[in-house]
Structures are given as C-alpha cells and as structure tokens.
C-alpha cells in the first residue's frame, strides 16, 4: 500500500519555483502493477522521486506526505523522509538504461553487494545471489563479469535481479525497457510480471508506451501537466476511459489490421510557469467549454474505484456535446 497525501512537489530554479506535481492525493493498494502514463514533463518522473523518497535540491516537497503502510526496524511507520533507509531492501528502483547505470570499471558481483549494510557476510549473500540469478535465467558467471561483457538484455536482467533480490514491498521502474529491442523488451516485462506474481509486491511502472501498460498493468494512473487526470483498474481505463486525454492516448495505440496513421495527441501541454486556471487540458480538448476554462475539475470517483478529473467524464469526443451532457446527467 502506498498512500499519497496531497503531494505538491516543486523545483526551485533561477526563475522561481515551479510545481512539477500538484496536489496528488490517492492510494495505491499493495500487490499490484500500476502503470503511470503521460507526456514528458507531466510530472511522472517527479512523482517517482517523491515516492522513492529521493527529494533533494532542487526538488522539494511543498506539502503532503507519503505513507507506505509498513514500519521500520524500530516499529515506527515509514514515511517519505525515512524511506531512504529502506532503499533496495523494502523499496527498489529499476533505472532506464542499464548500460549507463552500471559502473563500467567494477565487476557485477561488487555492484550487487556494495549496498549491503554489513549485517550479513558477503560470501553468504553472494551464494544466494548466484542461486537467484539462475532462477532468473542468468548464468552465474555474470557475477564475475564487467558490464561491457554482457548484452543489453542480460544487463537489464541484472538490474531486475538487483532490484528484486531482497523481495522489496515496492519496486519503481522508470521506462525499464525503452533502450531495448522489442523481443528483449518483452522478455524483461514477462520476467517482471512473473516475479511480481511470486512476490506480490507493488510495482510502479513509468512508460510512455501505452502498449506496455495495456499488457502488464493492473491499475493505470494518467498524469497531465502535474496533475492526476485519471486513475483506475487497467481494464476499466482501457475499455471505458473517462478522461478525453486518456482516450486520446489510447487511440494513439495501433491495433491489428488497422492502417490508419496515428499521430498521437495533437498540441502541446501548457507551460507549468503559466498562470494555470480551470482544466489544464482545456486548450487541447475537443469537449472544452467555458466551464472547463474557468473551473478546475476535482479528481472524483465516477465509477467504483475509477477516478477522473473532468467535467464531462466519460463523454465521447466524437459525439455532439448535448448528447454527452444528457448522458452525463442521466
């Protein structure tokens, strides 16, 4: 379980402060894979940093807190300030590029153990690591290699192994497969799914690839311009999206037998430096009315467990507005 209490995260720059995550308030249940989607700059990476407790200058938390639903060694509930001590034990992180994220001049073996706190013998841990790697389909010689001696897929498997070895409660994965070719990509995602099924941990997966989300996530979180615009079970979100932005993201996915050109969502998100009023998506939204431009829609539960922030939730942008309004009212 992860509880995000009204998170406002800011970057301090020379121009002043800018809110990269603005009033995010929601709860992620334990044991699910949550996909986070949105265009670059929507705040998904910042949200990851906050959840991971990596809140260092220039990033700061203007308000809010994160609870993880577990206690530390002394029995105190862990929050975003103390989660740091649980890094790679109860919460771990899989970075985007395995090539540049591994130290090129140190053997994998030493990078597997250099975050140990010394409470256990290194040799014992290494023996366990060896067994674990074999389970993940990696030859144990991997441990004695340097990163450049491994293929891209093997390296990313090593990263997954590192992140899952201590069976953490939470795993954050930031675009874990973007640097890989499609076949390897798929095998890594399957591996993650397998492990999650065994360990029942919570995985938060950031990706711009809606196809990946469709394949492996249980829940979806859609962000737009520092706000959460939709959150719900993946099946619901993909079948019956409530927010027009989500719908457009999904529509940009190609499907089999479809020869249309998909150009993504037209237009660009607003600058976070601007004075933002009303719904932030209004400028790009085919359904936008004066209400949207003046009043910000709150994130509300429209169907059980399915939340969205839209005045016209569930409306089909292809249909005339009156009809959707009527349906929304009914």
């Amino acid at each position, binding site marked *: 379980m992860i509880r995000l209490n009204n998170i406002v995260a800011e970057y301090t720059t020379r121009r002043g402060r800018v809110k990269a995550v603005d009033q995010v308030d929601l709860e992620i249940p334990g044991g699910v894979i949550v996909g986070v989607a949105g265009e670059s700059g929507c705040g998904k990476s910042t949200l990851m940093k906050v959840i991971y407790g990596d809140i260092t200058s220039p990033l700061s938390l203007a308000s809010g807190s994160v609870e993880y639903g577990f206690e530390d060694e002394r029995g105190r509930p862990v929050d975003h300030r103390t989660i740091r001590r649980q890094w790679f034990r109860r919460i771990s992180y899989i970075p985007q590029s395995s090539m540049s994220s591994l130290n090129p001049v140190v053997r994998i073996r030493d990078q597997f153990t250099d*975050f140990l706190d010394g409470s256990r013998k290194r040799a014992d841990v290494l023996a366990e690591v060896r067994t674990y790697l074999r389970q993940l389909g990696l030859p144990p010689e991997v441990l004695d290699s340097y990163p450049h001696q491994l293929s891209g897929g093997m390296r990313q498997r090593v990263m997954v192994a590192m992140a899952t070895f201590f069976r953490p409660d939470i795993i954050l994965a930031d675009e874990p497969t973007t640097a890989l070719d499609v076949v390897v990509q798929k095998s890594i995602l399957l591996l993650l799914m397998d492990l999650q099924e065994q360990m029942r941990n919570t995985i938060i997966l950031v990706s711009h690839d809606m196809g990946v989300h469709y394949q492996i996530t249980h829940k979806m979180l859609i962000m737009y311009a520092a706000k959460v615009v939709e959150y719900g079970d993946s099946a619901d979100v993909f079948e019956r999206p409530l927010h027009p932005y989500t719908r457009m993201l999904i529509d940009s996915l190609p499907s089999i037998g479809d020869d249309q050109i998909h150009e993504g969502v037209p237009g660009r998100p607003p600058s976070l430096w601007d004075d933002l009023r009303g719904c932030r998506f209004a400028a790009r939204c085919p359904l936008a009315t004066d209400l949207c431009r003046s009043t910000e829609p709150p994130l509300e539960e429209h169907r059980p467990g399915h939340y969205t922030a839209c005045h016209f939730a569930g409306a089909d942008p292809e249909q005339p507005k009156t009809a959707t309004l009527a349906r929304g009212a009914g």
Partner: protein
Amino acid sequence: MGLVQYVLQRLVAYLVVLFVGITVTFFLPRVMPSDPIDNYIAQLQNQAGQTLSPQAAQEIRASLAELYGLQGNLASQYVGYLKRVFLGFDFGPSFSAFPRPVSEIILAALPWTIGLLVTTTLLAWIIGNLIGLLAGYFHNRRSATVLEVIGVVLFPIPYYILAISLILLLAYTWQIFPLTTTIRPGVMTLDQIGSILYNSALPALTLVLAGFGWNILSMKSLAYSTKEEPYVTFARLKGVREGSIMTRYVFRNALLPQVTGLALSIGTIFSGALLTEMLFSYPGLGLMMRTAAGAGDYNLLYGTMTISIVAVATAAFVIDLVYPLFDPRIRFR
C-alpha cells in the same frame, strides 16, 4: 578493442614517436645557421690565443666530422645516426671529458633524474588527484573552492619561478634547506641517504608543486562531471554509502583520463625537471646538459637530447601499458 590489439597499437605509436623525435633532432641542428665544428674550432682558437694553421684546422675539421658522424651526404649521415642510436647506443666520446664515451656519462646522471622525476611525478599525481577529487566531488562547498583556487594559482606558474621562489623563501629567508644541491658520492649509509633527501628536498618540492596544478584542475572537472553519470545516480539510489560512491564510482572512473593525461604531459614534466635541476645544481641530466652547453660538448648534448626523447617516449609507453589495469574494458573483451 582487445588487449593484444591495444598493446600493438600503443607499440606502433611508441615507435612513431621515437622515429619522429630522432628525425627531428637529426635535421633541426643541420638547418641551424651554425655549425658545431666551426664553433669548436673558434673555441680552440680562443683558448690557444692564436690562430691555428689552415692545415691543422683542416685536420681537426676532418677528425671532428668523423666523431660527429658528419661525413658523406645527408642521407648516409641520417642512416648512420639511426644505426648508432638504435643499435649501438653510441654517441661518440665526450669532448670535455675526452675520451670518456658520452653514453657512460649519461648513464651516470640518468638514475638521478629518473629517481627525482618518478618520485615527484607520482607524489604530485596521487596527492593532486586526491585534492582534485575532493574539490570536484564537494564542488558546492566553500572549502572546495579554496582547493580549486590553489590549483588555479599553481597551474600557470613556470618551473623556474617556483624554483626561485622556493630558494628565496626556504633557503634564503628561512634557511631551512641548502641553496644548491651538494651530493657527495659515497656508500649508501643512512647518513648519506639522509643527506641526499635533504639536498633534493627543494628540487623535489618544486616539481611536486608544479605538478599539482594540472592534476587538481583536471581531476576537479572530471570528478564534477562523473558525479552526474547515471551509474553514480543509481548507486546513490541503491543506498551505497557516500564514501564508497566517491571512491569506487566517481574516483575510479575519473582516474582513467588522468592516466592518459599523465602519459601525454610527461614530456612537459621532463622539460620542467631539466630546468629545475639546472637551477638547483642537482646532479641529473639537466645539470649535465648545462655543463655540456657551457663547454661546447656537442656529442654529450646530442646524446642527452636523444636519450631524453627515448626516455620520455618510453615513460609514456609504460603508462599506456599500465592503463588497462585501470580500465577493464581493455583487459577483457
């Protein structure tokens, strides 16, 4: 790139440096508007206080030409020069200490220079890199700025200025060290070693200080940029201890260009060391060159110049060979 391929490539580069160096030192003196034989005869006439008979001058000219390898056309001189240097390590006899062969005199002075250079270069490299690491890793602290300023001030100061400043301060004003080096030959007793260290302290300090600047500044900017590498960020997010991040992640990686840089700058360091030896009368190649220059001992000068090039190229080659120890990407394919 495999290890064998790497070594071969460095070996070729080494041979090219030797070839270019030897060739340049063969041709440059020959395009100078001055002739060592004329100089030498003029010197003889000055010393004798009378003019030599044309016949005697001619005889001396012929025998000198033989000694200098100046017979025949340029091409055959060049081939003869290459042969003598590479095959025989033969630079003819010295004139100021006739008939002692030049190679013998050089070999006597060489260990002093090598000893001084290796010690000071290693010291400057190790300490300079450590200071640079701290300055780069903690770049936003005030103390780091102080360390960097030390580097900025030290770096552009020429060797001879450092030498003179140290003499002025530590030998003249505060008479801690001797003004010039006096090393007497003798058995290596504890006293003798102590005396050598005491007498070499100022030239050594000069070379270490001169080496600091480059090492500090270059390590500072390397550590600063390495700190931003994704593997350092990931190590931090893994919860690796700060000390371990600084040494095993930032330092280990930032050190690689520093090894290459050392190989490239060894020529400059050597040049500075020669000048420093002269100013302190330290009994190495530098002082020997100065004496030889004063006496017009061209064989000794040519020999030392050639040996200097060979020594520097070899040192750079050795550093290149050590490099794979720091970089597993070359050791293992």
